[in-house]
């Protein structure tokens, strides 16, 4: 039997898009929805991620274990920044050209 990867780098709840207090049913619904969105034949890599996340969350004991063991105090501190911090604003050409003009 395939052993799921418990040490996911990402939060499985984030992958499935479920809140921290989501129960079994909610987790299952979210999983099925995600599988519909990313079917294994078309997006095998994404599907693997989704399935690994579900494998962790479906069993309450493993879910709990993940809660304790997923924290990594030695991870790079930039990993604390959420994905939204990557946003890039369109500014028009002037600020860019100013860099080119600067001696």
């Amino acid at each position, binding site marked *: 039997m395939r052993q799921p990867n418990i040490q996911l780098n990402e939060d499985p709840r984030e992958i499935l898009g479920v809140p921290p207090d989501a129960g079994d049913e909610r987790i299952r619904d979210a999983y099925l929805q995600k599988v519909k969105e990313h079917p294994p034949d078309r997006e095998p890599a994404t599907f693997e991620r989704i399935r690994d996340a579900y494998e962790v969350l479906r069993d309450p004991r493993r879910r709990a274990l993940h809660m304790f063991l997923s924290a990594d105090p030695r991870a790079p501190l930039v990993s604390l920044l959420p994905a939204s911090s990557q946003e890039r604003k369109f*500014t028009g050409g002037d600020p*860019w050209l100013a860099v080119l003009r600067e001696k």
Partner: protein
Amino acid sequence: MKYNQETRLPRPSVHGTGASVPIPQEEDLRALLAKGKTKPAVELAREIHKRCGWPETEVLLVDAYAARIRSLLKTGLKEEAKALFELVHKRYSSAAARLADVGVLVSASSGNLEELLRPLNDPAVLPEIRRAIACVVKGQVCDLSALAECRSLTADHPLRTAAAALLRAFAAVTAGPVEESALLLPEVSHRGPLASWKILVRAIAYFYQQDDAACERSLGIIDPDSAPARLIPALRTMLHTNTGQRLAPAAESLMALVCGSKVSLRRALQALDSAFQTKVQDKILPEIQRAVTACEVAYPQLLERLRQYISVRALDLDLPTRKVRAALGGASIKNAYFWRLYARSAESSDEALELLICAQWEQFRRHAVAEGWFAEKGSEAAALYLHMAELLLEVPAKTLERQRSKFTARFSGFQDYYEDQPPVIREVQAKYKKSDLYFLSPSQLFERACAIDPHREAFERWLNWAKQESDGRVADHVAELWHRALPLHSQPLLYLMESAEKRGALNRATAFLAQAQKLDAVNPEVRRAALRLLVAQTGRHLQQRKPHLVEQDVAALEALPQAQVADRPAFLAALRWAGAVVRGDAELASSFFGQIGRVLGSSAAAILACENAGALGRLTRADFDRHVPQVSLDPADSLVVATARVCALGDDLGAPFTIPTAWHARLCQELTNAHGELERWQLEMLGKAALRTNQKELAYRASAAGLEMGGDQEARFLLLRARALPEWEFERRDDCIAATVELGRRCGDMAIINEAIELRRGHRNTMTKFLDWLVSEDWQDFSMTTEQIHAVLQHEKHSRAFPSGRHAPLRVPFRETVFLDDKELEKDDEPCALDDSNQLVPEMGQPREKRPKRIRRDLPGQGDLF
């Protein structure tokens, strides 16, 4: 004019050869130019030209002036450069062609684009001038709109149309998402002076599409001497691939506009990570301050979490608390998040004390419950208790006991951590009694876990732990609790049956078996337990000298289908033989003896089976001697084969055979030469039986014979080898265990993995779940590459001789990737000669009066059979 006339002097040739005379000091002049010393170069060139006045020396002088003009331009002396250019251009006839490119640079230095580009309208313009203009456009022109509107070029000039197209594309990619077609820019030639602009536009488009890899690829192919290359450092910083370089104000301002202030935070966090890696306090503290300040500005909602991470890392490095707090601008909040981080940090530390880690997890549990992460009696809490118990099981029992008493005496809680904490945090700490140190006891942790979330794995782990306790009642209590919590499980009943049987409480054992059979009669474990219990009962009746009951027991045994498998009928016959001995019926005993010999196909094995049954029924030596016929053994009838077979049979039926230590040397000798005579499972049982009486050399040789056979059972024999090694060969044992685990993992043999882990821990038979093992540090400890496994196997296969002393050469564990070559290993081999098989006879029962004095078989490691 004077100079021009002088210049026209022809260069003389060497007399008689026709070759020109060399220019004096030409080498010196070239060297000065190469070093960038343009002023002395000009002076020397003038002196040479003054002396010679040849056309060649004029060219040299003009080249020196060109280098000087470039140098002046580079240092910003534009007027001086222009004046010198005009002077040289006017004075020397060869200057027009040789100073063409310098002339373009002088024009460009005035900043007048119109003037710079004007020569391009002349179709007869020198190629040097065209190239020089292109070079200036590529490296210096940043104003695309000025280029697009340059009046000195025709409206349809390729430079103007390319600049206009780039301007539109640049505005588009920096204003919003664009289609791929907008990036094609067919107006811009790949080889023209604006090619790098085309790549820059594409890089910016990828940047906004968050395709950082493509963006980085584009940046990598921009010509570093081109004007657009000035944007590369800023873009790389925004891509997070450039952390160290300081940027110009315009670039900083661009980053603030595009990425907000978070990019500064990101850089501060990266710098702090680097500082932590140095472990130098003076480097870390200022970076903490910078990171916290950047976080306050850019991402205030992240500040507390960042403080907690920093606190934990600082604690890990033992940095002074006051200084860290000052740098952080206050203490981090000691809530569940902090305690989880702190416990995880301690778990990954090499010097962690398991008891302290459990104390940290307990703090986490308290806060997590108070903060609503999970309920006090939720399955998460149970999982945490189990995790804590597993941590404690990492420590050998005696060490744990010693540590516990020290810890209990010294541990005063985590009061210091609660200074400067908000009331809501302090309340949680105040709620719990300091003296409740339940988390130091595996038993209490298991009990709590099983009470909250009773399930098979939890009880199994608890029972396996309890089996190691010296007081057998602990395990009985656990099994009873298991049975009470999960009455449909047969496992606790089987354990209770076995325990009662060991105590001699056979009625009670039978009752437990009956319950287990009611639950799951077809379960192989239950079926085997039934067989073993009946065998134990027969042994008891033999000991009570009740042959009629023995007969009934054996009849009941025979009725079991599982009793007819493999060599089992031989053991049943041996029990009947023992019953006949008790009854004093020599003829019947002889008949049963013959039956055993026929089933086993070996007189030696028949004798040993009778020995085993006799030991079970505690027959006297005299009884035995009277009823084992004087048989002449076939010389080929190997003692080791017979012993292995009886060991396996006894183990199977719960009547383990004790190998007399007096046979040790002979069995070792035979085993060394018993190629192919024994099955793998027989070898394994023989090895295990040898270990029961601490006959490590025999077990070692059994492992050698097993390893020699190769195949898929190598892991089992590596584990047997690990057990058989002397204590001082601990590194070699660790290698064997690690290789066993890795081999077991590869063939999915969970049982052998668990056995190996427990051997490493100093316990046996604990059935840790594979998943938990995966996430435990054990996994890291046991990792081995294929090459390392192969090396361990080769080493063990070649080391056929039992380690004889502490004077073995220094050995480095295989996991440190040191491999010994085969020649080195061969030195360990020790050839053993098989003694005459007839020498077996005295110990096999024939001249019985010469046998050593009998001792009790339940005292392992001592002498003969009884």
